[in-house]
């Protein structure tokens, strides 16, 4: 379990964002990955072939394990982005079986959340 030693947190202004639908407050300048880790939402994505939960590995932009969906855009590296007011972060659930072809009425994020419920690992 991660915890913060951010002694200067009170000096930084706070922003509100959602992580997998859960409201989270984080200090400005914090990385999205750090906000996720502190919120206990450490599953960044599902692996595309075997549909297993994955989490950040290098935290410095190299491994691409922390790809999440930010404001509807998938494949964003959580460790390279900083939190912003109103940001919506979701664990990425695009696997080789994710399909938008069952119905033309649903949006990509609908489909992804539906899949997430089937696969598990969805919180909040």
């Amino acid at each position, binding site marked *: 379990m991660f915890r913060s030693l951010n002694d200067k947190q009170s000096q930084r202004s706070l922003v509100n964002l959602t992580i997998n639908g859960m409201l989270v407050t984080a200090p400005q300048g914090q990385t999205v990955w750090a906000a996720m880790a502190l919120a206990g939402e450490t599953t960044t994505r599902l692996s595309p072939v075997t549909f297993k939960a994955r989490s950040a590995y290098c935290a410095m932009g190299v491994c691409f394990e922390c790809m999440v969906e930010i404001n509807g855009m*998938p*494949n964003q590296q959580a460790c390279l982005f900083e939190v912003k007011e109103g940001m919506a972060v979701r664990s990425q659930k695009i696997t*080789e079986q*994710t399909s*938008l072809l069952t119905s033309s009425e649903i949006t990509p994020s609908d489909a992804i959340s539906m899949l997430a419920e089937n696969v598990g690992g969805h919180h909040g």
Partner: protein
Amino acid sequence: MTAIRKSDVLVIGGGIQGSSTAYHLAQRGISVVVLEKDTVSRHASGVNAGGIRLLGRNIAEVELSKAAMHMWHQLDDELDADTGFRARSLINVAADEADLNTLRSREQQMHGLGYFHEVMLDQQELRERLPHVADHCVGGVVSEQDGYAIPFHSTQAFRIAAERKGALFCEGEQVQQIRKVGDSWLVSTATQQYQAEHLVNCAGAWADLISVMIGDNVPMSYSAPMLMITARMPHFATPVVGAVSRPLSFKQFENGTVLIGGGAKGFADRANNTTRLDYSLLASGAHNAIEFFPIMKTACINRMWSGLEAYMPDNLPVIGKSVRSENAYHAFAFSAHGFQLGPVIGQVMTDLISEGSSRFDLDPFKINRYERKVL
């Protein structure tokens, strides 16, 4: 000094055309050696978009393409390998009334010639097949047998099947000199001499150099058609997609990645085996993809590349016998649409070598079709 290596046929170029030719020759018990200057399927045959397309072919190519398509549908069994071929149909999308008019006149022409494999789609049919196509698209045309294959796997499949039947592939062997002595072709590389009765030029973007050594001049050019592939996306398009009047072409593979092409060319440096990309052209390809499929806004590009490909001024390949030398044959300059033809080209070359003729009309593909009498 190493001994000269003899075979009935020497194929220059280890791409899909050369590998398919080797396969068909070996199957008929003809001994064959393939010389490849780099590695098999290193260039266009390994890195192209993998489109298996009969739709929209130049009339001159339709018979060849139909025969090739028939072969693709049984190729995995024939070669006992996984070429990655998937019949998914190919749809060219019409964006407006002008596009539909283009399709109607094409339909009339094709029907007149007795070809019925291209079928027009109205707006509703288009939407049923491509639920995520943009609202403004009015219709299209489909070819049901079309699809895609994995180029590297397909070329390797031919190579491995050919080797099983006795063909020999020599990689890292760049041709330095070609001589005709008596009835024999003598070909030398830096380290080895080869001798054969028949010589086949399948050298892709380097085929004009081989042609000159054989004795045929050819107005071939080469370029670097560019491709990009996305990170995995949710499945949104089963058919391969093109557009009637725009440079757009993409396919979503079973693993979810989307390959975007469209024919835009980068800059080729064939002496150094490298290419440079033209990002503003790729940008307009990206723009078209999003305009036709708004869901592509969420696409992220993972890799961009281009291969080295040969072109003729009329965008038709050179297929057939040499005009200046006996027992020499060409199959090159497929102008970025030769991958689908690969299986049949090997058969054509084998027919030319073993029987002296092909059942196909190869007149439009003659190497000397640009030669004119000077008055």
